[in-house]
């Protein structure tokens, strides 16, 4: 039987951030996840924004963690080589009614300790963002709202945790949690039983199912679907900041912003649903995005879309972000309601969980040889001519462009496959190096990436999945 100190269930942003935080100490940690790649579910399909917490409910744990997390990013993205930019958000008021709401929004930001929110006039906003609705009356400027590559963030946290000794059991489903005398004893998984003192339930969408295993499911996860458009990098109407709508009572609304790689992201919807599996897009949902975002950016051209997707926010009923430990079940930590702000607060949640474990008796000794830094895949397309020449001299595979749209080389794809916790599926390659994420959506590079994956993993192409088990790409060979 495997033996460890802490089992983290879920390799999404929160699970991986907790694992990395724990890896700073002399503690044995195992992360388990049902998927064959780190990155979770909600963590990989969201708006990729690092929030400030200006609009959180003041005084809540969520407010506290988001506000604490935002400033942590500057150092972490540098240490872990994660694409990130502090582009700031604007909140334009188009109608008088919206304009009248601005003081209250600013005051709420203040109560959340987000002091740097500023008022801007309509002219100032149009100067900053020329494609904004010209009827804008004024608005708020939230300078520290930022954008990030959410895939790389989670991979980087996981890779770095792994480099510091954390073990990852992927393709591993938790089937039960054994307790004894009011204490956690072990976690049963499809890869065997793991004896452990602590279990952290960071299972996101499925956290209520894990809680059920220990009789602590006093809540239900409610999946809240968000549909998005991604637009071509060449789209005619672009924005340079995160353009947020003034929230209504019903919804936070749909936004438009650049992604860290220069596409435009438009969305999301907010649709509560029963199913935790249904990540389909719908005509109604996509049309509602078009209607709403045109209020903010009238000329947004959704015909220049290169993909649409939807993600599920693990909301909870009763609502709110919850951190729970129990007197009658020592060693069990339950995280629930980690929703839209989950990506942002993953870093502070890591710290929070570790501190709580210390309060609850986990012995914490700093690791002397903690490796702080992680290097990402070298991006050929972002190098100077001289650097490119040098790369090819050292490794000729940098001269072989596989993905035309994003200019991704074979060397980068091999790095994605062979680095720790490397890519096994098509989507895992795509989320590491962006091959197939451009305008042709893998039409050209897909067949080549499939060939490379099969070659490198020494298997048949029919064994390569798009992402999860059962998502086989091809069925076999042609008639000979």
């Amino acid at each position, binding site marked *: 039987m495997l033996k460890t100190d802490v089992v983290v269930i879920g390799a999404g942003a929160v699970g991986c951030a907790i694992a990395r935080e724990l890896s700073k100490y002399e503690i044995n940690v195992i992360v388990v996840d049902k998927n064959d790649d780190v990155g979770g579910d909600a963590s990989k399909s969201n708006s990729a924004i690092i929030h400030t917490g200006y609009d959180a409910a003041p005084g809540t744990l969520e407010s506290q963690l988001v506000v604490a997390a935002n400033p942590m990013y500057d150092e972490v993205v540098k240490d872990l080589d994660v694409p990130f930019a502090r582009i700031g958000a604007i909140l334009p008021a188009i109608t008088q009614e919206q304009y009248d709401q601005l003081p209250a929004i600013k005051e709420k930001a203040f109560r959340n300790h987000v002091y740097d929110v500023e008022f801007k006039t309509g002219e100032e906003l149009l100067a900053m963002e020329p494609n904004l609705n010209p009827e804008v009356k004024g608005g708020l400027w939230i300078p520290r709202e930022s954008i990030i590559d959410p895939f790389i963030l989670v991979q980087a946290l996981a890779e770095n945790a792994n480099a510091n000794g954390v073990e990852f059991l992927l393709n591993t489903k938790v089937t039960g949690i054994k307790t004894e005398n009011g204490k956690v004893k072990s976690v049963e998984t499809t890869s065997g039983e793991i004896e452990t003192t602590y279990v952290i339930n960071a299972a996101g969408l499925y956290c209520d199912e894990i809680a059920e295993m220990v009789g602590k499911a006093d809540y239900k996860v409610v999946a809240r679907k968000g549909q998005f458009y991604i637009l071509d990098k*060449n789209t005619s109407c672009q924005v340079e900041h995160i353009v947020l709508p003034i929230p209504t009572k019903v919804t936070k609304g749909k936004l438009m912003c650049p992604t860290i790689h220069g596409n435009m992201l438009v969305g999301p919807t907010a649709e509560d649903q029963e199913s935790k*599996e*249904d*990540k*389909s*897009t*719908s*005509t109604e*949902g*996509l049309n509602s995005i078009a209607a709403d975002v045109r209020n903010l950016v009238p000329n947004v051209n959704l015909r220049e*879309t*290169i*993909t*649409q*997707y939807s993600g599920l926010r693990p909301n909870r009923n009763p609502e709110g972000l919850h951190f729970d430990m129990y007197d009658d079940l020592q060693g069990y930590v339950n995280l629930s309601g980690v929703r839209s702000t989950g990506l942002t607060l993953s870093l502070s949640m890591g710290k929070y969980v570790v501190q709580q474990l210390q309060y609850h008796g986990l012995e914490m000794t700093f690791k002397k040889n903690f490796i702080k830094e992680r290097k990402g895949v070298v991006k050929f397309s972002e190098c100077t*001519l001289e650097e*490119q*020449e040098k790369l*090819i*001299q050292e490794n*000729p*595979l*940098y*001269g*072989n*462009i596989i993905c*035309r*749209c994003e*200019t991704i080389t074979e060397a980068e794809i091999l790095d994605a496959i062979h680095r720790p916790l490397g890519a096994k599926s*098509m989507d895992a390659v795509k989320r590491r190096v962006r091959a197939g994420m451009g*305008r*042709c*959506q*893998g*039409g*050209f590079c*897909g*067949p080549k990436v*499939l*060939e490379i994956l099969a070659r490198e993993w020494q298997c048949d*192409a*029919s064994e390569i*999945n*798009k*992402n*999860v*088990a*059962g*998502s*086989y*790409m*091809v*069925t*076999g*060979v*042609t*008639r*000979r």
Partner: protein
Amino acid sequence: MFEINCDVVIIGGGPAGLAAAIGAKEEGAEKVLIIERDNALGGILQQCIHPGFGLTRFKEELTGPEFYGKFVDRAKELGVEYMLNSMVLSVDHENSQVICVSSEKGMTCVHAGSIVLAMGCRERTRANIVTPGTRPAGLYTAGAAQRLVNRQNIMVGKKVVILGSGDIGMIMARRMSLEGAKVVCVVELMSYLAGLTRNRVQCLDDFGIPLKLAHTITRIEGNERVTGVWVAPVDENKVPIKEQEEFIECDTVLFSVGLLPENELTRKAGIAINPITNGPEVNQYMQTSVPGVFACGNVVHVNDLADNVSEESARAGKYAAQYAMKKLPTSTGTVTCVTGRNVRYLCPQKIQKAEGSEKVSLYFRVLNPELGVKLVAKCGDEIIAQKKAFRVNPGEMDHIAVDTAKLTTDAITVEVVKED
């Protein structure tokens, strides 16, 4: 950095690039270089193993590889040079050079007297047409599936629905059937066929594959692999009629929903792009808005037939060679070509007038199918060319030839007129 000098450099070694290279050589250019990103010449025709090529050009029916093979032979005979596995990263027309990269030579700068763009096109995707539903494995563009089947000998699925009646879609319907897959149906949004009629007969009818015109896929189902699609008829505004939606089980969906000229390099170089064709604007010499840069084939506008591509590209090569040798005719004025009734676009978009007389073919596509019509070219109010057409169809390109001696300074209008 590795440096190369040549008279004409051609980006792309498919049917367009090969014909342009031959055209340039035959016109007298000394050093002609093709830069090709694949590991062999031939472009997309390498995976087009079906017959149907060469009927116009060679008066015989050839497969894709047989067709381009003739061009490769001729190019080699003429001493055309080529670099394989080499990807062009940028076109710098101000300095008349292109930067490309390969494993073998690293970063390479090619200086040329003129540049020919022959990058071809790419396929529109499921995302471009915003088909709702899930994102499982088993969704392919028809061309990607064709590459896997014909070049990598890999089967993509067993039970297939094809969206779009473009030529590649229909050809893949036949190909998948021959490989033992069940092609359930081909679904087409428009009320008419998108591709060539002969392909409908040879690829669908002969294999008993139903064609559902004025239908579309309204939703894709399946979380891991495709489990099926919902298909509905559409009304006259192309809006699906929900009540008549039916579920069709399948494990694979192929999208054959149009092609887009691949003009990333062109755009980056600041060359004018036509919003309808999505390709560079050209004159009859296939010269773009930048004098030293020429373009031909599907990068300019999507053709139905490789034969047409070869004709147009030979011309681009010829004039690119003349430009490099400083022999391109001196322009005595520019005439614009405009679309008239039932004409979607025209190519070339401009005609350079010069000394003497020259026959220029204006290629165009219609907006809507029509029977019993006349194709008319006017310069101002003067009819300068006309011909009868039994049938016009958006899926089949038409052309009309005009004599440059008949041009005034007025614009040329091409229109489709109903015969009385």
